[in-house]
């Protein structure tokens, strides 16, 4: 067998189980030298587990890993690195309190001189169009800039396989173009690239071949001839995806209003919210699009009432001025909230579902004169479980025992069952499997039909266009005007999200 035909990476029969979940079930994967290979799949399909196995963070329960013809299992992170496997994580493996150069130095073996390393960083980063200043503190960098550090860090180690996990979720369209240019250049030089994504357009634009995962198994390995949306979606989802139906309806009174709202950030490297003015009405779903890290977290915390220091302007819920009121008071006038973080914020990990139902659900008569009615908490939890199709052993199961999708259904269900006047939802279907995502989106639409006002903050443009009546863009803590869905398009919103376009209030 000559070298040209020898796969760089060959996985056979990879299997990994987490408790009762079979994350990877007999997966085969082949990546050739110089190939940009896509690993496609919806959330929960097993992509993350597989990539963790390849870079040595997790060991498979069964299966073999061959690197350039040799069996290399068991792998650990340092062995993988030594072989030439580099990984750019979706959530960056960077130390905020250290500089770019220090972060990169940590990954390199020899303790080279500082000046030498700085020069190399500058040289490599500029060569591929991703320039970096070695002395900058990572904490001061945007998500896109941090990704560059990750990539340059990998490149400096002379990788032979580069794994990129959902790299474009934090990039503007322009930056995506730059990244793709760099990747093509690298592939031409012989580097193999494993491009993990669920975005079909990007896969089409970049990749030579794809391995599609579905529910832990390989659903297919299409080549470019089968790269149309319909076939890929069928492989990823197993069937035609059901669409959400959005009947037009007229909006009612404003349920959430901001007037000239300003909130300076307490974090020295955070985003200040500036001059936010908008309203969400009863019977409509308003969406806020934006690249991660442009103030979404700060906005949610401000709406909830968790951060109020230094705020100015007015905030009204269902007509009541709640600007200076704490979280509990805002919930009392009709605010419900589904936060971005499920574990540890939306739900308490080690607590039963009944206990988690009580977290925001005391209003259902679960607390009388300061005492908890435990039977009632179980009843409420059971109602949520039944109404929102939460797969769980029962109300005594802890939040930790639920999958991401089921826990999210529970949290969304809990908030919806509070019969709020306005529901704020952040990243409603992030990390959630397809079936649960569908269910959640439909629940939001049903809530809208019942006359609640819904605000969805999401990085998923397709989702926003599926369920929202009006959409605005948040950038650098400022909000554009809301446009009705019919009057705009994915491309237009995408352009507004990228740097360089002016954002008009």
């Amino acid at each position, binding site marked *: 067998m000559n070298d040209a035909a020898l796969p760089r990476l060959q996985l056979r029969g990879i299997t990994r189980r987490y408790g009762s979940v079979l994350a990877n079930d007999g997966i085969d994967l082949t990546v050739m030298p110089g190939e940009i290979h896509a690993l496609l799949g919806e959330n929960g399909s097993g992509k993350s587990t597989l990539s963790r196995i390849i870079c040595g*963070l997790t060991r498979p329960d069964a299966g073999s890993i061959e690197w350039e013809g040799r069996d290399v299992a068991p792998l650990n*992170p340092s062995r993988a690195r030594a072989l030439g496997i580099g990984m750019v994580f979706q959530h960056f*493996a960077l*130390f905020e*309190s*250290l500089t770019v150069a220090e972060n990169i*130095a*940590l*990954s390199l073996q020899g303790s080279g001189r500082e000046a030498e390393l700085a020069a190399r960083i500058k040289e490599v980063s500029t060569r591929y169009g991703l320039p970096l200043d070695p002395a900058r503190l990572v904490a001061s960098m945007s998500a896109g800039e941090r990704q560059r550090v990750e990539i340059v860090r990998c490149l400096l180690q002379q990788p032979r396989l580069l794994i990129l996990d959902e790299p474009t979720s934090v990039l503007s369209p322009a930056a995506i173009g730059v990244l793709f240019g760099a990747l093509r250049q690298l592939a031409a030089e012989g580097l193999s690239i494993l491009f993990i994504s669920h975005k079909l357009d990007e896969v089409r634009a970049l990749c030579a071949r794809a391995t599609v995962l579905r529910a832990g198994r390989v659903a297919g390995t299409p080549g470019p001839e089968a790269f149309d949306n319909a076939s890929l979606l069928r492989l990823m989802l197993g069937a035609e995806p059901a669409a959400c139906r959005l009947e037009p309806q007229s909006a009612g009174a404003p349920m959430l209003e901001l007037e000239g709202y300003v909130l300076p950030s307490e*974090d020295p490297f955070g985003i200040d919210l500036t001059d936010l003015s908008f309203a969400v009405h009863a019977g409509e779903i308003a969406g806020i699009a934006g690249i991660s890290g442009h103030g979404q977290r700060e906005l949610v915390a401000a709406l909830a009432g968790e951060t109020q220091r230094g705020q100015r302007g007015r905030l009204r819920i269902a007509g009541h001025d709640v600007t200076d009121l704490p979280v509990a008071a805002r919930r009392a006038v009709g605010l419900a909230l589904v936060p971005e973080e499920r574990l540890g914020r939306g739900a308490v990990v080690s607590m039963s579902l009944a206990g988690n139902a009580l977290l925001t659900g005391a209003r259902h008569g679960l607390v009388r004169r300061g005492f908890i009615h435990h039977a009632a908490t179980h009843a409420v939890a059971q109602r949520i479980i039944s109404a929102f199709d939460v797969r769980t052993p029962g109300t005594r199961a802890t939040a930790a025992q639920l999958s991401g999708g089921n826990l999210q259904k529970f949290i969304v269900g809990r908030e919806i069952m509070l019969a709020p006047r306005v529901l704020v939802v952040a990243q409603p279907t992030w990390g959630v499997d397809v079936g649960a995502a569908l269910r959640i989106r439909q629940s939001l639409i049903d809530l809208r039909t019942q006359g609640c006002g819904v605000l969805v903050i999401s990085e998923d443009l397709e989702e926003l266009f599926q369920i929202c009546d009006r959409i605005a863009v948040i950038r650098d803590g400022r909000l554009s005007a809301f446009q009705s869905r019919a009057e705009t398009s994915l491309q237009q919103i995408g352009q507004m999200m990228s740097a360089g376009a002016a954002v008009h209030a």
Partner: protein
Amino acid sequence: MSGSYVIALISATVIAATPLVFAAVGELVAERAGVLNLGVEGMMLVGALAAFIVSTHSGSLLLGFAAGAGAGLALALLFALLTLTLQTNQVATGLALTLFGSGLSAVLGRPYAGHPGATMPVLFHFDAAVYLALAMVPFTAWVLNRTRVGLLIRAVGESPQTAHALGKAVQSLRYGAVGFGGLLSGLGGAYLSMAVTPMWVEGLTAGRGWIALALVVFSIWKPWRVLLGAWLFGGMTVLQLHAQALGLPVPGEFMSMLPYLATILVLVLICRNPRLLRLNQPASLGRPFHAEH
């Protein structure tokens, strides 16, 4: 007040500060790696006793110091085994370490209670240990900021998960940092029982280990500031002892309260500024880390 009296006060301050410098610098390194070891008081006590016993029996001060350092190290490794390998709660384990160290030193030290120890040879008012403590400060600063080991420690202190993902030996680094902390705490205790108050009594440290913990916060985890804080506290101790001579009309018990009240004040001054803490406190401090497989 004569010049020589002032010099005597200053040198008394530096001497009183030395155990604090040792213990605080050691704990600083452990905390930079993300481990909160509340057992400093216990480690100082066993270090003090071990040093006292060994130096008394062997006549060698050097052996005494080595024994003190070794005792502190041993206790620190026990702490590391529990919190790093067995994943026990760091706060509870640190408290247990202090209680255990106090009890152990009290029991084993009974035959030696009240006995005076040897004196140390002095160079320009100060003995070798003082110079060693002073040298530890720039040494630690240099290691943390300019060497690879220091870089690794800082990385682990911010995020052991990330460091592990990068293939770093998180546990080994933490073991090392905690051990180093114990070594220095033991030295601090040793200096206490061999130089500052050259004798052994039960509970010799009188809370200095806790003050050292507060000093680490005061220093916002920068070694040079430890020196500043230790001198402040050393000065206070000296003031306390000389209050009568200086004619201060404050009852002895209230003077004795000074270091403890000052510790509270110092903590408040630093902690009230959340930005300061966010920028300087090791992000993973006190949180357990378990490497998944």
